[in-house]
């Protein structure tokens, strides 16, 4: 062994770390591809960290400076356009892959005992990811973002009891103003990355400690007959390959499908047609659009918020609700619940873009 390695090892106990990484084995079966999805999400988050920090160097929050500074980044700063495009594209792909990851985990019943907490931390990471997207969307201070934020924060205001309070805390006042922008900036670049990192470490440690889960059918096969490969270095190298492909895709998207900056936000201009949130909020947005002004005795807005609140909570606590999964039995009900959700999200998202 090289002297250098030995020197480090004597001080940092690298051997133990490598043993920890090698302990896990990755099952090889038809579902092995699913195991790449979490890793891709991780990689995309790393890209967000790097490009985000670079953007911070030039971005200036504030109603009079934000739009101008983003314009400066994309037109004057060398390769600034590339960094912004990568940040925007990678943000969207990040959410997309987290969704893929979540649904494959769901249908593989990987949330069952003993991995309930892995599911819960994963759900929290998704919520934070959505919060990243929502707060980041406002930062360029363009028309689209301005109204999307007004609408989004107004929906938060409809939550019973805490709504009023949340609305004021989110907006830093009663209206969406420069103060909101500064607040969103702080949330986006400091608060969220901090909390996200802690949860991410917990999530990854749990995966490493517990090893990869396999679906109930595969679990029934005796252990000796199941094929596996070591996580380190075999699977990690494959992970890197996939990341490289993703990086190339992002590069292509960033160059050939740039994100528009649009018009600067102006509170005295009517909301233009085509105001819409980011695509991952579209199914909720479209649902709200379809709910009539009043449902029974409730305002439609409140009804919608409650609908998604209850749905979200059920999804969050699925590991505890799906009791059959603990016994290694696939519950039909929960599988159909998941299929319904996927179909609902896809249909409403497409519908949202058509009308």
């Amino acid at each position, binding site marked *: 062994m090289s002297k250098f390695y030995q020197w480090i090892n004597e001080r940092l106990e690298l051997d133990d770390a490598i043993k920890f990484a090698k302990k896990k084995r990755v099952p090889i079966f038809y579902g092995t591809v699913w195991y790449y999805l979490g890793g891709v999400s991780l990689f995309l988050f790393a890209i967000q960290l790097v490009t985000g920090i670079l953007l911070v160097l030039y971005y200036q929050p504030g109603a009079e400076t934000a739009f101008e500074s983003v314009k400066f980044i994309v037109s004057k700063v060398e390769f600034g356009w590339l960094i912004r495009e990568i940040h925007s594209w990678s943000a969207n792909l990040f959410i997309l892959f987290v969704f893929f990851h979540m649904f494959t985990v769901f249908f593989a019943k990987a949330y069952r005992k003993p991995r309930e907490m892995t599911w819960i931390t994963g759900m929290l990471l998704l919520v934070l990811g959505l919060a990243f997207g929502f707060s980041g969307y406002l930062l360029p201070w363009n028309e689209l973002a301005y109204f999307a934020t007004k609408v989004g924060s107004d929906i938060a205001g409809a939550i019973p009891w805490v709504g009023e309070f949340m609305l004021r805390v989110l907006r830093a006042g009663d209206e969406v103003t420069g*103060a909101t922008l500064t607040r969103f900036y702080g949330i986006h670049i400091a608060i969220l990355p901090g909390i996200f990192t802690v949860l991410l470490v917990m999530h990854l440690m749990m995966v490493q400690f517990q090893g990869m889960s396999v679906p109930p059918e595969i679990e029934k096969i005796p252990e000796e007959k199941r094929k596996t490969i070591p996580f380190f270095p075999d699977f990690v190298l494959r992970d890197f390959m996939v990341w490289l492909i993703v990086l190339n895709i992002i590069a292509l998207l960033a160059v050939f499908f740039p994100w528009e900056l649009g018009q600067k936000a102006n509170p005295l*201009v009517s*909301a233009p047609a085509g105001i819409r949130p980011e695509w991952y909020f579209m199914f909720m947005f479209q649902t709200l659009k379809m709910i009539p002004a009043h449902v029974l005795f409730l*305002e439609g807005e409140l009804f919608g918020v409650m609908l998604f609140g209850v749905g979200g909570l059920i999804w969050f606590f699925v590991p505890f609700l799906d009791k059959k999964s603990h016994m290694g039995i696939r519950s039909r009900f929960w599988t159909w619940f998941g299929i319904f959700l996927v179909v609902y999200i896809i249909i409403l998202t497409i519908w949202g873009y058509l009308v």
Partner: protein
Amino acid sequence: MIPPDAPELNINQIEAGTFSDFPKGSSKIIRMGRIPVIVLRKKNGDFKALEATCTHLDCTVQFKTDTEQIWCACHNGFYDVEGRNISGPPPRPLGQFNVTLKDDKVIITKQELA
């Protein structure tokens, strides 16, 4: 970190412009204190001033000259020219303001003071 209460700006009256700023079938959004107000002139020449914030989720509405309706682009909400919500998600009518013409000035006042 709860934001402090912003003092309510006590503006009750504001000048929206001169008569010539408003050809028939036109509209303009102005600000009264914190409230955006849409001032419009109907095809028959009458003026109308309404709160410009949609009662649904807070977007800023616009005047559709062709149908003489008020439209909110965010979720396709419609109000009639009197501010009554007529279709789409808005749950309540738009707030009302008074318009008075003084010399050639168009003056908007809060309703409770009129």
